[in-house]
């Protein structure tokens, strides 16, 4: 029940999303690294629910995911945190399943899940892996809570859930060094009305709201026409189709759901921020730009650019910062894609007493080169190889396959978008990567100095204009 831009999500967004069955580039080969998409059957029920069925009998288990198209970006001012709160409430019982029994029933049948559910900026997903004899049971469970969501919740229970979420935010954000950095970055890049923001944000709105308001906001999104279900694993497709139809077919279609039009706030110039953190001992520097969305054709080029910029001992920022000049203990570059936007980010940790300003200068000079000079064929080939291999190793688990299929269906009306993107990436040219650097690594960006509380003398280039108030995790935590 975690949020996004967590490491796992970044990894998923930036690299994974890939899948199955075949191929990959042999070492030293110049051949394009391509993959074969997962095979699937797509079913659309009259009530609008889309089901994606990926049959695979190699193990007697099934991965299940139900994805609802509701995320933090759907929350207007005054309703922040509602999507994530409703994710929790979906475990509070349904017409025929008592409150708190969902997980116990899955587990009693031998099922598991790493997190059970996650709320991101764009969608809310629920997922489990079950032994194949539990197929009908899991469809019964998932359809029962889609049938009448939130029916058992009352104000007493709502208080308990608020308490759990408060503890979740403190454990995953306020209680870890720089745990709020992603939250601050995202809001700085995408602020505005209905901004992209942390799904597990401050508690104010959900503490203020009544249960009626919360249900009224969430219920329209928890409808079959706003959901995709994917099954991956050991079932017969015809039988699974019949069972999905049996359990989900009678659920009433809801009103059409509209998502806010998302525009990145045009950033004409640089925004310089400071994140102080009482738990941190060592500073870091982060530079972030608005990136490409899930369906944006530039996504592949930005991923290749991130790979080339990160580099290894012999190239890119790793060579410049960690090996040649030994100014940093590590540098991490990634491109993450959301449904309607993206983040391209460089983060470095100084070695010893290296000032953050020195890291910024070196990063800037390497970025300037990337805008002028394309990556080498070798750098690009490394990216293509790892991109294709990750698409296979990353889709070993059936739940990851289900997740990838629902994401493609939900955001691009094509469950195997991931495979088409990997195969398109195999044709990238160095010049396309340079063009992406020129287009995205623009002056409008966020430069964030992350420092231990009170160590404002450590910020990068203090003579430049910083925004106030400074972002901070006060020692007391929750705002």
């Amino acid at each position, binding site marked *: 029940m975690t949020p996004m831009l967590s490491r796992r999500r970044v990894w998923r967004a930036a690299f994974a999303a890939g899948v*199955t*069955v075949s*191929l*990959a580039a042999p*070492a030293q080969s110049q051949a394009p690294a391509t993959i*074969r*998409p997962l*095979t699937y*059957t797509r079913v*659309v*029920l*009259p009530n609008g629910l889309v089901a994606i069925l990926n049959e695979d009998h190699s*193990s*007697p288990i099934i991965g299940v995911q139900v994805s609802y198209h509701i995320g933090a970006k759907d929350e207007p001012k005054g309703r922040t945190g509602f999507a994530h709160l409703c994710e929790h409430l979906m475990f509070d019982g349904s017409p*025929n399943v008592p409150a708190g029994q969902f*997980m*116990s029933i899955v*587990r009693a049948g*031998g099922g598991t899940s790493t997190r059970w559910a996650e709320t991101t900026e764009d969608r809310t997903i629920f997922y489990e892996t*079950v*032994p194949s*004899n539990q197929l*009908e*049971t899991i469809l019964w469970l998932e*359809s*029962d809570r889609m*049938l009448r969501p939130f029916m058992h919740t009352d104000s007493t229970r709502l208080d*308990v*859930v608020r308490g*759990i979420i408060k*503890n979740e935010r403190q*454990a*995953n954000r306020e*209680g870890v*060094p720089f745990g709020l950095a992603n939250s601050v970055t995202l809001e700085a890049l995408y602020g505005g009305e209905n901004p992209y923001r942390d799904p597990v944000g401050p508690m104010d709105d959900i503490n203020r709201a009544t249960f009626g308001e919360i249900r009224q906001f969430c219920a329209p999104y928890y409808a079959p026409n706003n959901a995709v279900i994917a099954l991956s694993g050991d079932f017969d497709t015809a039988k699974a189709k019949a069972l999905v*139809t049996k359990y989900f*077919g009678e659920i009433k279609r809801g009103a059409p759901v509209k998502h806010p039009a998302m525009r990145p706030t045009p950033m004409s110039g640089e925004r310089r921020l400071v994140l102080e*953190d*009482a*738990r*941190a*001992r060592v500073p870091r520097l982060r530079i972030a730009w608005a990136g490409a969305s899930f369906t944006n054709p530039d996504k592949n080029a930005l991923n290749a650019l991130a790979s080339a910029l990160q580099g*290894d001992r012999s190239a890119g920022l790793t060579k410049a910062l960690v*090996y040649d000049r030994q100014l940093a*203990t*590590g540098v991490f570059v990634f491109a993450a894609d959301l449904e309607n936007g993206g983040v391209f980010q460089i983060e470095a940790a100084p070695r*010893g007493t290296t000032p953050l300003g020195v890291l910024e200068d070196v990063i800037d000079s390497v970025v300037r080169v990337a805008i002028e000079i394309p990556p080498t064929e*070798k750098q690009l*080939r*490394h990216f*293509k*190889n790892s991109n294709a*291999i990750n698409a*296979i*190793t990353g889709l*070993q688990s059936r739940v990851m396959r289900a997740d990838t299929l629902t994401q493609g269906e939900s955001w691009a009306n094509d469950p*195997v978008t991931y*495979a088409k993107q990997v195969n398109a990436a195999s044709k990238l040219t160095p010049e396309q990567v340079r063009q992406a650097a020129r287009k995205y690594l623009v002056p409008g960006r966020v430069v964030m100095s992350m420092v231990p509380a009170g160590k404002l003398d450590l910020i990068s280039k203090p003579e430049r204009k910083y925004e106030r108030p400074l972002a901070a995790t006060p*020692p007391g*935590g929750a705002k």
Partner: protein
Amino acid sequence: MIRSIARVAMCVALLVPALSAQQVDRSKRPAAPPPPSFVFPKIETRTLPNGLVVHIVENHALPLVAVRAVIQSGSLIDPAGKAGLFTLDTLLVRDGTTKMSGDDLSSAIDELGAPITPTRFTTVSAQLEPSLTLMADMLMRPTFPADAIERRKAQLTAALQRDEGVSSVIGLRIFNSLLFGGEHPFARVPTTANLAAITRDDIVKFHDTYVRPQNVALVIVGDVTPQAALALVRRAFGDWERKGEVVTASVPTPTGPSATTIYLHDRPKSPQSTVFVGQLGPARTTPDFYALEALGALFGGAAGSRIPQALRERRALTYSVVHTPVWRRADDPIAIFGSSNVDAAKTDSALIVWLSELQDVTGKRAPTEAELTYARSLTVGSLATRIETFDEVANRIALVAQSRLPITYYDDYVRGVNAVTPASVGAAAAKHIDPKRTVIVVVGDRASLEPALKAANIGPVVVVDAGGKPVP
């Protein structure tokens, strides 16, 4: 080799006819067919003449192979005063070998497209051979360049400094030092000072003595036949000379605490307290092993177990909590413990509830048949869903090898857990859980917690530093 996506993907868009108005009877959980039986994949084990053990699982469902190298016994063989040496060694072997410079090695790994470390990789089966060759080169022929040593020490030092900000890391260190004793190998952690004291000679000698084939097991899972895998292993590792020592790394038996005590480490104004609660347990060779597995599952294994129900679902004191035995190698003493981040203002309530649950499971509310059924589904019933991928199979076998358990461990496990009874689990709880000899570590705001914890009357409250030593 670009295949036509249209031809390969069997995409079928279907409109299903509307169901008749007849309603589905949802009032009862659907009857499930009998569960598929779980059988751990068949493992072929061979030993090379130089002592290297190879465990192979053949599975052609995906064109992948997952490889692990298990080095006995990890950081437990760090010499006293040189904690971090093993970790430093496994990092430094990536920085150059007699065949390749650090740059060339890094570039060769990138070319293969999957991260290859000295101890693990997962890649497409077509690249097993070059990947295994690089792994062998790192393990067998490292050169330990002097500049790399300084760089890796700086990286480790930075990681240590980051850890100092993480309450759960600090709390676990304090807990281990109080339960096992500050000098015990389980409590040993690297410090900036002892990293600085490690010399290149230390590293070279350490690697030459311990990182040798007689102390290493390879695990290979996936799209390769055992014969082909063995041939590749012989080619890559056959020349590795058996030399140095056979690692035993047996550890002292700790005495454990004599009375329940709360150890408080100050982290001013923390909104949550990070809490560890537990005690010493027996080695996994105990006849009570399976009963303790079931006990851990029903007491603190997952949502629906006693501690998560009590602390999260009924009282919203935490987001998550677990409390189970944490097993180590076959003969090692262990801790049976739980941890959680709890609402700071209610730390005392959380501990009172937690200890009363510990007390109850030893007698007043002994485990029931229903709880045991649930525990079996958590431990045994879910094996198929928890050991799904090639990576997970490889990790499990690596853990069995590292723990020096019989390779039939999982087959025995299913039988063992299925054989326990509520009476045997209750007896194990009464024997191994003693709420009066519990170590409690709280990392949080001393100013507000100290008076509240004293008033809770659980046990003495001792304020400690990050090493677990009392401070005024």
